[in-house]
């Protein structure tokens, strides 16, 4: 009992020392809070695929009432804004090349005639697909408008409207808002950046400044030193996650469906796995420069291949297998499912077990590396 108490006291004092190092410098303190707050706000607004008054140009070679009505529908929809009205086909290229317009709607001279004679009347849509996501979204929205136009046109001309209607609904995110996806994913992703690099740098800094050797001649055991390095980084990570969570919940008003306990339990497990990675990097590098480079080499793929930027399901199969090593992949899935779906921990075993395994490998590995580097 006494030994346990002494152990706890020693670990506590070490944690206190590490926290002091992280927090004593005002520049450091600001660095832990301000960027996370600022970036979660900025990215929350930036994370949208919804078109906002997309600029378009109209080339109407028909000028009949039907063509005018179709263009009017576009202007009235609110999603599009006409920036130019073109005269002939040679005008199309310059408007698109200069990015003046996202797309050109080209109504041919036969439009009204074809429509009245009961034929399909083609309308050309020329999209700037330099950003294929934006182009795809514009095409989808336009298709909806054209469909409405068809319904009304057919009804007005005595034909029956198209008989089948598609009723779509997105589960757990009724407005299909990308912000919901992104902000919740950032709870895990953004805090990982600094948790990982803080841990990776902490030992490297002591090594570079020579204080690590001093630490080693104290009565602390290597395990205690490691715990002392882990806990403060985890606290920082959890605190940053909380900031992003609050921004998402209070500022962007994303409703939380699941329990805070489940969320924090998962985040704790995730930061533990991340800290393990950070310590392993720390053990491998002898200078801060090295530690930072290694941390960064790791952070890039962890971030970009986690499902944060593009869905994992779209990747080629071997790449999907590779992402199974990525703790962030599981953390993002956990946060998504707890926050948006309200899933309980029982349904999340598939994410929790891999995180436990990663933590169980990286932490002992870091300990082993430390011992072997020191000899």
């Amino acid at each position: 009992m006494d030994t346990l108490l002494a152990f706890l006291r020693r670990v506590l004092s070490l944690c206190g020392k590490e926290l002091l190092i992280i927090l004593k410098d005002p520049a450091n303190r600001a660095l832990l809070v301000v960027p996370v707050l600022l970036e979660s706000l900025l990215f929350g607004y930036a994370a949208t695929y919804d078109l906002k008054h997309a600029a378009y140009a109209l080339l109407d070679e028909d000028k009949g009432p039907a063509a005018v009505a179709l263009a009017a529908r576009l202007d009235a929809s609110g999603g599009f804004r006409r920036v130019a009205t073109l005269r002939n086909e040679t005008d199309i290229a310059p408007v698109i090349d200069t990015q003046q317009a996202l797309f050109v709607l080209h109504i041919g001279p036969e439009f009204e005639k074809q429509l009245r004679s009961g034929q399909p009347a083609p309308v050309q849509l020329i999209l700037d697909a330099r950003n294929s996501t934006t182009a795809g979204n514009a095409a989808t929205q336009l298709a909806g408008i054209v469909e409405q136009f068809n319904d009304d046109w057919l009804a007005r001309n005595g034909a029956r409207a198209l008989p089948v209607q598609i009723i779509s609904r997105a589960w757990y995110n009724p407005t299909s808002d990308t912000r919901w996806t992104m902000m919740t994913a950032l709870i895990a992703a953004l805090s990982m950046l600094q948790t990982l690099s803080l841990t990776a740098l902490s030992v490297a800094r002591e090594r570079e400044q020579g204080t690590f050797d001093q630490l080693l001649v104290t009565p602390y055991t290597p395990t205690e030193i490691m715990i002392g390095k882990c806990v403060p980084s985890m606290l920082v990570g959890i605190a940053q996650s909380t900031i992003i969570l609050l921004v998402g919940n209070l500022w962007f008003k994303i409703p939380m469906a699941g329990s805070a306990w489940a969320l924090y339990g998962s985040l704790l497990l995730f930061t533990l796995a991340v800290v393990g990675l950070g310590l392993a990097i720390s053990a491998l590098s002898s200078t801060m420069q090295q530690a930072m480079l290694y941390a960064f080499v790791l952070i890039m793929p962890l971030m970009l291949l986690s499902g944060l930027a593009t869905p994992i399901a779209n990747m080629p199969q071997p790449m999907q297998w590779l992402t199974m090593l990525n703790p962030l992949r599981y953390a993002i899935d956990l946060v998504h499912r707890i926050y948006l779906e309200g899933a309980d921990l029982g349904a999340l075993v598939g994410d929790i077990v891999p995180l436990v395994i990663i933590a169980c490998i990286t932490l002992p590995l870091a300990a082993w590396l430390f011992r072997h580097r020191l000899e």
Partner: protein
Amino acid sequence: MTSSRGASSRRVAALVRKELRQLLRDRSNLLMGLALPIVLILLFGYGMTFDVRDARVALVMEDRSPEAADVVAGLALSRHITPTLVNSMRDAERRMADRKADAIVRIPQDFSRRLAAGKADIQVLTYGVDANHARTIQSYVEQALALWQARQADRRGAAHGAAGFVVLEPRLWFNAANTSTWFLVPGLIVIIITLVGAFLTALVMAREWERGTLEALFVTPVRPMEILLAKTIPYFCVGLIGLLMSILAARFLFGVPLHGSLGALLLASVLYLLVALGLGLCISSVTRNQFVASQVALLASFMPALMLSGFLFDLRNMPAVVAGVGHVLPATYYLELLKSIFLSGDFWPMILRNCAVLLLYAIVLMALAHRRTRKHLE
């Protein structure tokens, strides 16, 4: 004058040699500068795509009439969708909850009866947690169903001689294959160069300050400008090699077309590399502390370049203030340059404008680094 200029270039050459030795001694630098760009562009080029493949759609046929079968026949034809027939709605919902289905298409029991009456519904449910993915899948399903719809109307129209209808024919310029790889790969080059440039140099000045070796340099006749120049040149070379490898990978591995000229591409890239190196040097000489410098570089270069440059999210869709922040980032200008030069061709007014912006950034950042280095000397 000539002799002093000769002395200056001799000093710079000596310093460059020193930096080069330092750089080569630590293998992690070479790893960062040379191996990293190629590994990253391979990983991300193959791994990152918005193009949905084999979306798993659970199909609930509560109506087993021939009409209903005809409707869903179109779904199986789409190469983006893999429909699976399930027995009941409850079954489908369980699949969705277990993440074994990305969407549910439901043909209700009264479908054929209501179709005869001219007003039938089809339900499409998507897993909205990944909103963009869900929306893409939804639009594929809707496209497949709309195709059937058009066929139907065509048949009826021909029979009754009734009114026609509008068909939209989308044509994708600059990206005819409609693959997101074409716009993601240029974006990756931006991110990789930002990283390599800013990270290689973010610590070099801070390290000298921290260890006190910079003061040792100050007592020698070298000028601050020469120190900065000597710090830039070796890392510029390392970054340049990484840059060229990324461009080659984009062109030949991922088949991104190069419609513009190689000259414009190189000009823009070299300018941006200078901006990235300048950013690193600036962070380094302003913070004078490796730890702080590393955190600033991490937060100021990577995440903004990812989120606010137009790489993932289109600046045109953002609120004005946030788009404004995006337009302060040099990465935004380089990305616009790359996308246009690769995918659409040389459009000189834009190229010149953006290159001028990048040049301005490079000069301002270097001047700032120079100022912060000189100040301490006095």
